[in-house]
């Protein structure tokens, strides 16, 4: 069998597992409310109070376009930070190109961001590192307050917001936050950084159905074939051999 034969296409997959429940996911043709083009990294936005320009009529929009949680300033901060944590290079896309900002926006704007599955009763105390997260902040609040803190820290120490710094300086600022060397006004830097990094990695390596890992590029970069995963007839054949099957996501079956 050649590697190509191992592909399970949508039709074949449905035949094999009889998945009648292949639910409608994100449709590429669904039209979101025109929200204006988000500002790109490095671009100042939100200061001129200009009316947003609608997307050109007839252009295909998806439910993943636009932002529901971050404001335009936050979007440009997040994209700058994402491209520092996961810089674009020939190995694979950068964090913002991969859609991690969209991923983070949807997570923080939803139940996770509001503290679903997080015990939020007081009293609150700092505790030991072994006792884990103890802040009275849901993830959305932690990230939002921390973004303002880190940007203020960049401004205070480098005279510019994070998005306006060069890549090396951005990395230096984020390292200082990560290591607790940056004095932030409200949130503990390492706690904020670890949550931000975790969300970045979830977006980058998660299923594209959540808005990140655009075109499954992160999976292709490392050689993870995705879903549906049925290797019963391949496990011996591919011992010590590179796997050549197609990369597929949940979104591909929507």
């Amino acid at each position: 069998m050649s590697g190509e034969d191992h592909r399970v296409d949508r039709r074949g997959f449905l035949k094999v597992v009889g998945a009648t429940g292949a639910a409608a996911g994100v449709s590429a043709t669904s039209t979101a409310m025109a929200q204006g083009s988000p500002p790109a990294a490095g671009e100042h936005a939100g200061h001129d109070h200009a009316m947003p320009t609608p997307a050109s009529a007839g252009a295909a929009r998806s439910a993943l376009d636009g932002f529901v949680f971050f404001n335009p300033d936050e979007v440009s901060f997040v994209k700058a930070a994402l491209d520092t944590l996961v810089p674009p290079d020939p190995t694979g896309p950068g964090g913002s190109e991969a859609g991690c900002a969209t991923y983070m926006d949807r997570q923080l704007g939803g139940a996770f961001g509001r503290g679903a599955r997080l015990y939020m009763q007081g009293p609150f105390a700092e505790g030991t590192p072994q006792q884990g997260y103890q802040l009275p902040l849901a993830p959305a609040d932690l990230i939002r307050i921390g973004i303002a803190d880190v940007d203020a820290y960049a401004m205070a120490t480098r005279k510019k917001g994070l998005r306006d710094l060069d890549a090396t300086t951005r990395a230096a600022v984020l390292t200082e936050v990560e290591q607790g060397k940056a004095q932030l006004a409200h949130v503990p830097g390492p706690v904020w950084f670890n949550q931000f990094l975790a969300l970045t990695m979830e977006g980058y390596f998660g299923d594209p159905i959540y808005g990140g890992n655009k075109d499954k590029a992160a999976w292709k970069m490392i050689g993870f074939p995705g879903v549906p995963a049925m290797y019963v007839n391949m496990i011996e054949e591919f011992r010590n051999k590179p796997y050549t099957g197609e990369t597929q996501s949940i979104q591909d079956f929507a």
Partner: protein
Amino acid sequence: MATQLKPVDILLVGYGWTGGIIAKELASTGLKILALERGGPRDTNPDFLEPHKDDELRYAVRHDLMQDVSRETLTFRNKSSQTALPMRQLGSFLPGEGVGGAGVHWNGVTWRWTPWDQEARKQTVERYGEKIIPEGMNLQDWGIGYDELEPYYDRFEKTCGVSGKAGNLNGQKIDGGNVFEGPRKSEYPNPPLKQTQTGVMFEKAARNLGYHPFPSPAANSSQPYTNPDGVAFGQCHYCGFCERFGCEANAKASPHFTVMPIAARNPNFELRTNANVMKVLLDSTGKKATGVLYVDARGREFIQPADLVVLSAYALGNVALMLWSGIGKPYDPVTNTGVVGRNYAYQASSGATLFFDEKTYINSFMGAGALGVNIDDFNAGNYDFAKAGYIGGGGIGASTSGGRPIQSRPVPAGTPRWGLEWKKATAANYPHAAGVSNQGSNMAYRSNYLDLDPTYRDIYGRPLMRMTFDFLDNEQKQMKALADVCAAIGKEMGARKVEARTNPVPYSIVPYQSTHNTGGAVMGTDPRTSALNRYCQVWDVPNVFVTGACVFPQNAGKNPTGPVGALAYWIADALKNQYLKNPGALVRA
């Protein structure tokens, strides 16, 4: 005001593996059986269908099938001198919730523990004398030996369609199986799974080093299988989405499609979901349970009378229910008296991460929950652990359960956590990384225990259970010694870079380590040191029985579901053949 309901004969609190087994086994009694499950119902179809079931974010990262700690959690500290704080998010361990419990999202590793594990104190003292037991270690025996439990292991393995190879059939050692295991009466019901590249390399390296490798016993069916109850299993897909996920193929044994449909055929059986038991109700003597108080999804309170109550929730939940209900004397670590909350233990594990060259393809994404190759040469009772300076041991193996990319992207030590160097290292190493791990035993100590927190409450207003736990000197030595063994095997496997590791010391509630929480309501022979007798019947309240890993006096170097399932069959037999014929204490205190 609680609504009083009609009495039932047998009430199960929590509906996972053990509740399901007992409901199935007691159906023939004709008695009215009611199971109360705090979570909701679920089934393979529609809940675990492809491709949605392979959702790493939803199930593995956001814990969709697990306990919701915003509602019920515990507090934690390393030692009594600290103030315990709430486990605000899941981390170190992942208790289940909903029908099937953690039996839905386990990996399927189904061991028989070693005969030593059931007689840890007796065999240690016989071999080394009392003096070897360090101050503060509560080393105890189960009150039943391996030979008594063997037939029940057999029943659970056949219920689950375990794939494996016997290493000791009726005393005859068989190369290729686990030659250290206690004697088995019969072979595993299914042949072993097919090994990955990692498994093949581990097997060869272990043999080269003089060890005795064998395939891990897996409740992931290696072929289509029908169990003795007539339940059909599919063949494992080797999908690599096993632990934390449901199984689309009904190849991973789970109570929801095995024991529960059989139990549900009984017209005298009823299951109520979203029914959260607040406490067990006792009569004025405190020596007899009269039923339970539970809350439904809308928050309405019900009093459910019952003649017999079985606590069949997760290990930690059972202990909490006993503390909330006043069943058994709570443990006092200062005087080392009392039994509920005593002997809490965990898993003291270590291992080595292996990085191979670019010509060696591991393909870690192909795997099955319990797929792997093990050696038992360093498990407690199988070697001279005293010479190594501790009591206990561990099962060592190459577990190849999957390589899901949000959570599994090993890079060599010294690589930054982000940035270009991290990215290149991630892409370069993902296809070529593997691991060898030691699942280490954990003895029980005076200073590691469960009680009720004075400050924090759950959403129902009950005090949270408080966990006080750390890895002590004995476990630290064991973790280090066996990490070195793992690393040596990794080198023999040909890895170009081998990095030994242990669980964090001090113990941390943050990183995932294992959902093998044991003890807190242990079985034994002496009511001063055990909450339960050898039938897992509460010494003080004989119409309450307790199942699950909370009954183990200390934790073994093995996953607990095998003995948990075997003991559920053992308890069911004790109920059917002894207790229900003549209710009362089955063992004289």
